[in-house]
């Protein structure tokens, strides 16, 4: 059986190759996978939860290792104080059907033909300041609770302070935790003929070993909504119709996804397979 039995052109990428590509992106665009405050960025090798593997050329070309985010405000502090934090995607692996991941039992039924499994390890940490830091940065002055009707002209003695940027309380280090997250997806072709797009649909998601179960459910729910409403819609890929000019005014070659196969792309044999038709015209 030939690779091109069902189309003019055929292309495939094995999951091992895909994972190597992901690894290259993680090492060469680390700022897509590591987020934290300026305090973390100032000494990322020591302060991130997991020191990322960064390609030397990233440093050589002065590219950032993490995307700098505002510290997390301490609610009710009047915007005075905030906490340093970091969130990292430290591992991202893909597994095309027939699969090699040891999926959690909750997802095993979801991983069927044409499915894609993801294994993501994410770490996060919050910088909890020491007692010395708390002494150094006192709470913003608040009016005391007045228990009885006080006749003094200004019983609180508090002068309002102008709003300013919150102070990110410097911790000694971040207190980190890591979670393993598994997700199962499948691809669908949607849209009218000529404007077909490839979309990914979430079939299931599971975070490993979080207790209590209700907390796990809530976090998983949030992650599902994040993927359903934010991440996956952004991964909608318009199926390309490429028109290439031939030299010497010899016409054009048009390549587009074949519609004569049941699944295109097909997720099978541990790889993603694409079937493409070609038309040559003057």
């Amino acid at each position, binding site marked *: 059986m*030939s*690779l*091109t039995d069902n*189309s*003019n*052109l*055929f*292309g*495939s*990428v*094995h999951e*091992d*190759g*895909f994972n*190597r*590509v992901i*690894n*290259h*992106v993680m090492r*060469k*665009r680390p*700022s897509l996978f590591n987020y934290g405050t300026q305090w973390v960025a100032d000494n990322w090798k020591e302060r991130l939860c997991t020191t990322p593997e960064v390609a030397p*050329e*990233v440093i*050589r*070309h002065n*590219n950032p290792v993490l995307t700098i985010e505002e510290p997390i405000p301490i609610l009710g502090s009047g915007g005075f104080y905030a906490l340093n934090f970091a969130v990292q995607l430290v591992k991202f692996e893909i597994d095309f059907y027939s699969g090699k991941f040891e999926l959690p039992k909750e997802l095993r039924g979801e991983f069927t033909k044409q499915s894609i499994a993801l294994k993501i390890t994410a770490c996060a940490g919050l910088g909890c300041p020491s007692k010395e830091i708390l002494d150094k940065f006192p709470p913003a002055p608040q009016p005391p609770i007045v228990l009885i009707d006080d006749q003094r002209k200004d019983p609180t003695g508090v002068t309002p302070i102008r709003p300013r940027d919150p102070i990110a309380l410097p911790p000694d280090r971040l207190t980190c935790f890591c979670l393993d997250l598994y997700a199962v997806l499948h691809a669908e072709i949607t849209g009218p003929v000529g404007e077909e797009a490839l979309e990914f649909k979430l079939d299931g998601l599971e975070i490993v070993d979080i207790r209590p179960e209700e907390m796990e459910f809530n976090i998983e729910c949030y992650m599902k909504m994040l993927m359903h409403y934010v991440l996956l819609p952004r991964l909608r890929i318009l199926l390309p119709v490429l028109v290439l000019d*031939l030299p*010497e005014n*010899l*016409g054009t*070659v048009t390549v587009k996804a074949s519609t004569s196969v049941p699944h295109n792309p097909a997720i099978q044999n541990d790889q993603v397979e694409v079937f493409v038709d*070609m038309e*040559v*015209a*003057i």
Partner: protein
Amino acid sequence: MEHIKVAVSETAFIEFFNHIRDNLQIMESDSADLGPFVAGYEIDIRLKNGSVDLRDDNTVRIAELDIDPVIFRGFIGIDIPELCIGGFCIIPTPFGCLLRAPRLCIFDDSPDIGLDLDLAPFLRSEVSFIGGLRTVYFTDPDRPLGMDYIDAQSAGFQNKWQIFLDPESVDIDLFDFADIAGDLLEEALDTAIDTLLGFLPGWAKDLIRAIFGPLIDMVRAILDLPDDIGEWLSDVFGESLGLLNLIADSVITEFANKNSLFEFEDPFQILPASGGLIPVKVPISDLSVRVTDDEMIAKATIEA
């Protein structure tokens, strides 16, 4: 282990071949001043028939592709140095010449002889070609030592994977080109000279031939052509036209060596540079191309 596979079906090859064959038109014209003569040509060549076949021995065969010259016209303009006879003194006197022989000059035009050779009806020929596909990893010798792949890309020194067509045999059947062209040239020369001398009375033609011999020989001498122009052309183009094959072989080899069918840079770009961030590139190794009866398959490995 290879991670990437790309296959092109034989059907796609045939469709592509047919399209190129039916639409390719080679039109050229040029002329040059070569001292005693000027030469020019005008060609309009199309392709017909032929077939392409992928073969299990890792080769591609293009068979019996007809080269069909709609126009294949050559022009030679010969400028012969002016020759004058007569004008000498028959009756000299102490006071000068009393009677002179009539003076007659020929070849005073430029060019004197114009030959228009229409070779199109005789040049229909047939090409067969067998070639394998070869992969090459190109490293630019001018790339400065220590330059990283990002700077090399900006400076145009990037490494490349290339796929070349490796000719294994080329066969061109050019039907009796030398004899036909030689006959045409000889005939055209005789006609042109007769026309050139047509204004002369018979006795004058005889006189000129007596003095200079057959003008065709003279023109040949000027052009440095031997007696048998057909044989000369045959020699020029090689014994039994072997030189044509050699030339075609050399041209195709040269073409194949200098022009890759397909190439891409290594490492291969996945994400472009953006907002000061470096591009994300992935190193590719072990590129190989294999041809079977049904398709051509390229495979490669993505390096860690």
